[in-house]
């Protein structure tokens, strides 16, 4: 058996059915072995899209996504996607071709040290030195990617390792990856702290979905009745229409969420990492609160905010151990009153399309059942604020890295993970151009992925910041020379429509949810629209700028 065949056999052993990639010289032996391997390969049109698609696949399926690229530029094109998976704790196995072992270190054609380049952005990585090691490496990589706090693992595969014959195989050892359990004494201290709290708030992070702790978290909310705020990646930990959900916290969070945190006397952080976008000025974050921090990754504890009690380990086990009935009715009423006072308004003047209203209508029309894959910018925040999100895996967003270009390939990956579910990429006119070539992937495979492009003819979020914080000195944000996006989509063979009036919202929603096959909706919106509220940089979350509809 050749090394490439051994690698694919190990992937099959782990249940891999689909991989995303792009071939090239050094990875050719693996592509040769893919023929007839039983593993479906999805040819993307840029390696970055392979990594993002594998990321989307992983977030929806809960299993590692696999992406493949050749050496040199193929490998470096994966880097953004690997970094994205690292920062958002997504299980990914990235396989890169490499020049043959005798050529390594000679600056050979398409040789780069991808192992070295990616060291800071992988959970672990391997260079294959012996063909016989391949099965062990693949199995280890899989387990490492998926276990504990998930993340990307790189396997750099020299051409001669893939093409050579394996003589026997190294024993496959499962690494030491059992989840930790929180200390019993700490659990007791946390339970006592919760019992004594008068103004507790649950701060839900992406770890709840990643750790498959949604059921335990919702049980905890139901048992304690504690109001919930969420990070971008924590959205869906409870349905966003759950009465106790106050909204996203942080820079573009709701006033109710931010005020509740600022007023709280106990903050229970669950799978969250006190990211600067969530906390604002850290010194002033939840100033009166003691902190209980639950996280599977012990290295997150005390990193930015000292925890009064740290519960490092499996979230479900910890939550089950500290739940209890509480007498916090007055605090709950106060939080719900704030939520009602600062509820979103959708009565935008004019006859144009108000993007938040369109997003709200779209996701309520499907009762939050579609997968929404975002790009990055203003529309990303509008999705987070206004979409009905029932589960974290139905909201794919590049949270940590903030990578424009993520949305379309992630929506493709989401489709392969759950083909029966509608997959919609929500993008902006800046972001869509980063990976617009993936329209060809939609066409090639006839994928019924939908694209909602919110076009404000600018890099809207940058423009907003220049307007607010750089004295309206607009620098390189004008995109009014965009192509005719509907024509571009049609040139790829994708059905397309352009809308710009509020009266077209119903037909737009209907098309996005019911059109057969792929569809590109080009939606022109107000170029001056901003995302509100906004915590200005350097301020605490108590300082929120608000716009006309707030």
């Amino acid at each position, binding site marked *: 058996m050749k090394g490439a065949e051994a690698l694919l056999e190990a992937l099959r052993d782990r249940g891999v059915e689909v991989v995303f990639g792009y071939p090239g010289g050094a990875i050719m032996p693996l592509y040769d072995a893919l023929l007839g391997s039983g593993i479906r390969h999805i040819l993307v049109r840029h390696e970055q899209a392979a990594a993002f698609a594998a990321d989307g696949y992983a977030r929806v399926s809960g299993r590692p996504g696999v992406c493949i690229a050749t050496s040199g530029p193929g490998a470096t094109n994966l880097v953004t996607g690997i970094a994205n998976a690292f920062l958002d704790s997504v299980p990914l196995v990235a396989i890169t071709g490499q020049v043959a072992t005798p050529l390594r270190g000679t600056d050979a054609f398409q040789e780069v040290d991808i192992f070295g380049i990616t*060291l800071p952005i992988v959970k672990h990585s391997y260079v294959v030195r012996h063909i016989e090691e391949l099965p062990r490496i693949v199995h280890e990589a899989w387990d490492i990617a998926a276990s504990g706090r998930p993340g990307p693992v790189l396997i750099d595969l020299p051409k001669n390792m893939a093409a050579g014959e394996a003589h026997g195989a190294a024993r496959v050892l499962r690494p030491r990856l059992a989840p930790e359990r929180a200390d019993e004494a700490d659990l007791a201290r946390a339970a006592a702290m919760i019992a004594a709290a008068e103004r507790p708030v649950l701060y839900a992070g992406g770890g709840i979905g990643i750790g498959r702790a949604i059921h335990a978290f919702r049980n905890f909310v139901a048992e304690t009745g504690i109001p919930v705020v969420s990070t971008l990646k924590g959205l869906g930990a409870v349905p966003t229409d759950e009465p106790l959900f106050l909204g996203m916290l942080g820079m573009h969070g709701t006033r109710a969420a931010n005020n509740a945190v600022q007023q709280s006397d106990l903050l229970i952080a669950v799978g969250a990492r006190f990211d600067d976008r969530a906390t604002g000025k850290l010194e002033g974050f939840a100033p009166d609160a003691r902190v209980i921090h639950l996280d599977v990754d*012990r*290295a997150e*504890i005390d990193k930015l905010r000292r925890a009064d009690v740290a519960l490092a380990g499996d979230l479900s086990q910890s939550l089950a151990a500290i739940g209890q009935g509480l007498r916090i009715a007055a605090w709950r009423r106060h939080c719900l009153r704030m939520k009602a006072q600062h509820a979103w308004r959708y009565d935008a003047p004019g006859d144009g399309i108000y993007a938040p209203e369109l997003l709200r209508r779209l996701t309520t029309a499907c009762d939050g059942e579609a997968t929404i894959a975002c790009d990055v910018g203003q529309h990303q925040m509008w999705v987070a604020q206004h979409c009905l999100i029932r589960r974290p895996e139905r909201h794919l967003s590049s949270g940590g890295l903030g990578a424009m270009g993520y949305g379309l390939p992630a929506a493709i990956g989401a489709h392969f993970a759950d083909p029966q579910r509608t997959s919609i990429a929500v993008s902006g006119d800046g972001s869509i151009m980063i990976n617009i070539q993936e329209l060809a992937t939609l066409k090639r495979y006839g994928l019924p992925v939908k694209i909602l492009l919110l076009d404000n003819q600018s890099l809207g979020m940058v423009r907003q910041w220049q307007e607010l914080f750089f004295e309206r000195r607009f620098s390189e944000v004008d995109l009014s020379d965009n192509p005719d996006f509907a024509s571009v989509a049609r040139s790829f063979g994708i059905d397309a429509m352009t809308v710009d009036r509020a009266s077209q919202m119903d037909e737009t929603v209907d098309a996005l949810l019911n059109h057969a096959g792929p569809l590109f909706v080009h939606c022109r919106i107000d170029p001056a629209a901003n995302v509100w509220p906004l915590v200005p940089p350097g301020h605490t979350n108590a300082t929120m700028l608000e716009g006309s509809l707030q």
Partner: protein
Amino acid sequence: MNRTIEVSLTRAEGAIVRILGLIERRGFIVESIATRSDPHADSLVMHVDVASRGRPYDVLVRQIVRLLDVRHALLVEPQAAGQRLVC
């Protein structure tokens, strides 16, 4: 005050670079390194003198520990630091 971190690690490609890179990326300064091999355990033991710009050393140690090549890492008590090799 500088602190010394003792790290026991598997002899694996990139293991040393991974650890030193992590220390610097997390905002600490590597002042000196001493490394010796343990042929019986197929491992290396590193002592890294580290300076902080105010970030907690215990968090850094936990970040090192989660690297897959690391067998253990610990902060050396200050009174024991005089025994270490520095190069």
